């Protein structure tokens, strides 16, 4: 069904299939055997009940597998096959009332019952006790509650509880025009505003039968990389703060501020709001703008290289990074980790290799850390390598001006899907439209959402005072989950 779209301008290919609930598990297993990676699942209300759709990424193709369930019917769980499906199933239960068959327990995720035992994993044995942190913290942090099961300083298990500020954006977007729906995706999270917007725009365009032109694709890639730049600089600063290494924190925070000011000079907005529009356009770069931006980026790049070098030689800080918060390649595969966290463990997945709707070269390769040990040190290294690549990409993109973008008409997909690499990992957006071209369903599954359970897993076995450092090495958004 996608052959005639292989020639540029390209879009992300999607394949849809529907199976009865009785063969749901077998069909999902077959997807895995074909090489598909689980990238989330979502429920859509239908006349008779729900449609439960799982997304699998296979190269540039996204395959949607769905099953129809009547009211009160149960869906066979796949959490034992795909650990990454845990949050998706729990969320569908809490928000859509979908029941799952074969799960020992589906602890509440978005719903917040009072009893601790109802949402935490029971930890038994001699001497474990619980340490509760948040949702109100001593610093300026988003709202999240962490319940550590510890013995002494050693963490046995962590139950994170997010969704304190769940806004129901997906539900709120329903009934709006696809163009207006962008605002809901954009406002899900400030630090991932561009990624979420681009993912939504690409998905909505696929559902509307629009194909972005060259300028739109280049413009979107530009703002995506600018977003990655300031996020990576921020994350390195935060990792330094996590070990109390003030010079590193200050240096990278200052670089981040400069990146934000460059954003402002380009888009009149430090966090690049309003640079993406459904159907193309949004950001336009004249030759003068491109030169100014290139000059700013060149200086920033030089200072980044210096600061990075200094951080590499800061022995007391580097001594804290190794062997902390380790994540094995097996864990990455089992839990569906994405982004720098996955690449730091040696799993070369990067949404930028499979984004035909954007402007990454066919030779783009996922960043590989010198030592894919999966710990804080490796996650820091990945960011260092990627920041250098981002400077390179930005230089190429700004070599010529970017005009006002538009899009061409093509055949619409029944369900628009897009996958875009955010600074924290692959973000997936699915858009379904009604016959009257209104939003019937938007589903946004961000890189942060995919990685939160992974962070909890990587924390086990570490020391309690090392948790802030591990947390910062993932640097996930709460807002991306509380969408």
């Amino acid at each position, binding site marked *: 069904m996608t052959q005639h779209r292989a020639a540029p301008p390209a879009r992300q290919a999607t394949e849809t299939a529907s199976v009865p609930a009785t063969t749901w598990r077998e069909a999902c297993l077959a997807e895995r055997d074909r090489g598909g990676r689980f990238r989330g699942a979502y429920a859509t209300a239908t006349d008779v009940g729900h449609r439960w759709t799982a997304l699998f990424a296979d190269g540039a193709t996204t395959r949607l597998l769905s099953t129809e369930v009547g009211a009160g019917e149960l869906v066979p769980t796949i959490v034992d096959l795909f650990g990454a499906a845990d949050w998706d199933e729990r969320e569908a239960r809490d928000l859509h009332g979908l029941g799952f068959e074969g799960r020992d327990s589906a602890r509440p995720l978005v719903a917040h019952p009072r009893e601790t035992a109802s949402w935490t994993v029971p930890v038994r044995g001699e001497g474990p006790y619980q340490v*509760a*942190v948040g949702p109100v913290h001593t610093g300026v942090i988003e709202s999240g509650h962490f319940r550590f099961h510890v013995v002494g*300083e050693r963490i046995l298990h962590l139950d994170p509880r997010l969704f304190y500020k769940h806004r129901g954006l997906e539900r709120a977007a329903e009934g709006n025009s696809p163009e207006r729906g962008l605002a809901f995706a954009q406002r899900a999270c400030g630090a991932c505003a561009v990624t979420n917007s681009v993912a939504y725009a690409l998905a909505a365009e696929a559902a509307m039968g629009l194909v972005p032109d060259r300028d739109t694709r280049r413009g979107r890639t530009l703002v995506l990389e600018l977003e990655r730049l300031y996020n990576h600089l921020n994350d390195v600063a935060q990792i330094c703060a996590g070990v*109390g290494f003030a010079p590193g924190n200050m240096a990278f925070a200052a670089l981040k501020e400069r990146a934000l000011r460059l954003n402002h000079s380009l888009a009149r907005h430090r966090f690049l709001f309003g640079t993406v529009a459904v159907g193309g356009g949004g950001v336009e770069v004249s030759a003068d703008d491109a030169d100014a931006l290139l000059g700013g980026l060149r200086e920033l790049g030089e200072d980044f290289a210096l600061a990075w070098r200094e951080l590499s030689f800061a022995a*007391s800080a580097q001594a804290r990074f190794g062997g902390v918060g380790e994540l094995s390649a097996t864990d990455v595969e089992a839990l569906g980790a994405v982004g720098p966290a996955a690449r730091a463990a040696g799993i070369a997945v990067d949404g930028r290799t499979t984004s035909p709707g954007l402007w990454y070269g066919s030779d783009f390769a996922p960043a590989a850390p010198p030592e894919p040990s999966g710990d804080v040190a490796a996650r820091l290294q990945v960011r260092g390598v990627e920041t250098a690549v981002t400077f390179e990409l930005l230089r190429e993109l700004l070599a010529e001006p970017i005009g006002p973008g538009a899009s061409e008409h093509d055949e619409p997909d029944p369900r628009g899907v897009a996958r875009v690499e955010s600074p924290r990992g692959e973000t997936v957006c699915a858009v379904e439209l009604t016959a009257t071209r209104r939003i019937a369903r938007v589903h946004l599954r961000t890189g942060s959402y995919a990685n939160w359970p992974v962070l909890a897993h990587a924390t086990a076995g570490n020391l309690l*005072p090392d948790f802030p450092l591990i947390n910062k090495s993932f640097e996930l958004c709460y807002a991306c989950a509380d969408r």
Partner: protein
Amino acid sequence: MTAVAALIQVLGGLALAPLLPGLVQSLKARLQGRRGPSPLQPYRDLRRLWGKSGADPQPTTLVYRLAPCVVAAATALALLLVPIAGRAPDWSLGNDALVLVGLFALGRFALAAASWDTGSGFALMGSSRDLTFAVFGEPLLLLALLVAAFPAASTDLVAMSVAAGGSAPWGEPAHWCGAAAFALVVLVETGRQPIDNPDTHLELTMIHEGPLLEYAGRDLALLEWSGAARHWIVLVLAAELFGPHWGGFWAQLGWLALGLVALCTALAATETAQAKMRILRVPGLLAGGCAIALVGLASALVGGLV
């Protein structure tokens, strides 16, 4: 001149002490490329806190209520033990170095008991870490003081201060060992990096800040002042027992002021250059300090025999 020493002892401890952490913070900000707060900021904080009433979390008992007073009283008493420029008035307390160790322990115990009383996770975590470190920190303090006590043949702080004056001690390896060990004492007692991070907002990593989280208003002011006074005590001791000082009373007073500024600068520089250590490695560092102090003691013993 003893009257002047007494004046500095009391007024310095009470009024000048907050200047020391203020100075460290201010210097640190400069070193990190920030404008930072003025060195007088701790005074402003104390004034603000003093104007507010305390708050008791429920359920807590007298243990929680009394802890700030006990800590402040123990610290105030410790202030009176520390000689200034080799002189100390007779408060009928003596100036025994071992009493100082005990008073520090008393303050630590009061705060740990208050943490138990509140049952707050962060307070208990901070206290438990503080007590764990104290297992290594107290012997370190004791051994470092003993190294200084050797040439004076007494644990009287005035005699120790006098014996540490002039150029003679610098020819003794023991003095250098003692100075190295006491540098670690300064880090652990002032709660500074690489052992503790006084600026952190990360509650899971807190040590000295943890037990203070539940306190507010005047109680917190007392505890904050005690922290500043602890800076005063250990830094004055470091300058008096292991810093260079020559000449008469006034000259020694000048050396003391110089020593305090130098030590604050050193603390700021250390805190800037060093990240915080992994928490379980701190006991090893302190044990290493104990070993250095023991080498110092051994060398002093051998020297005494020859």
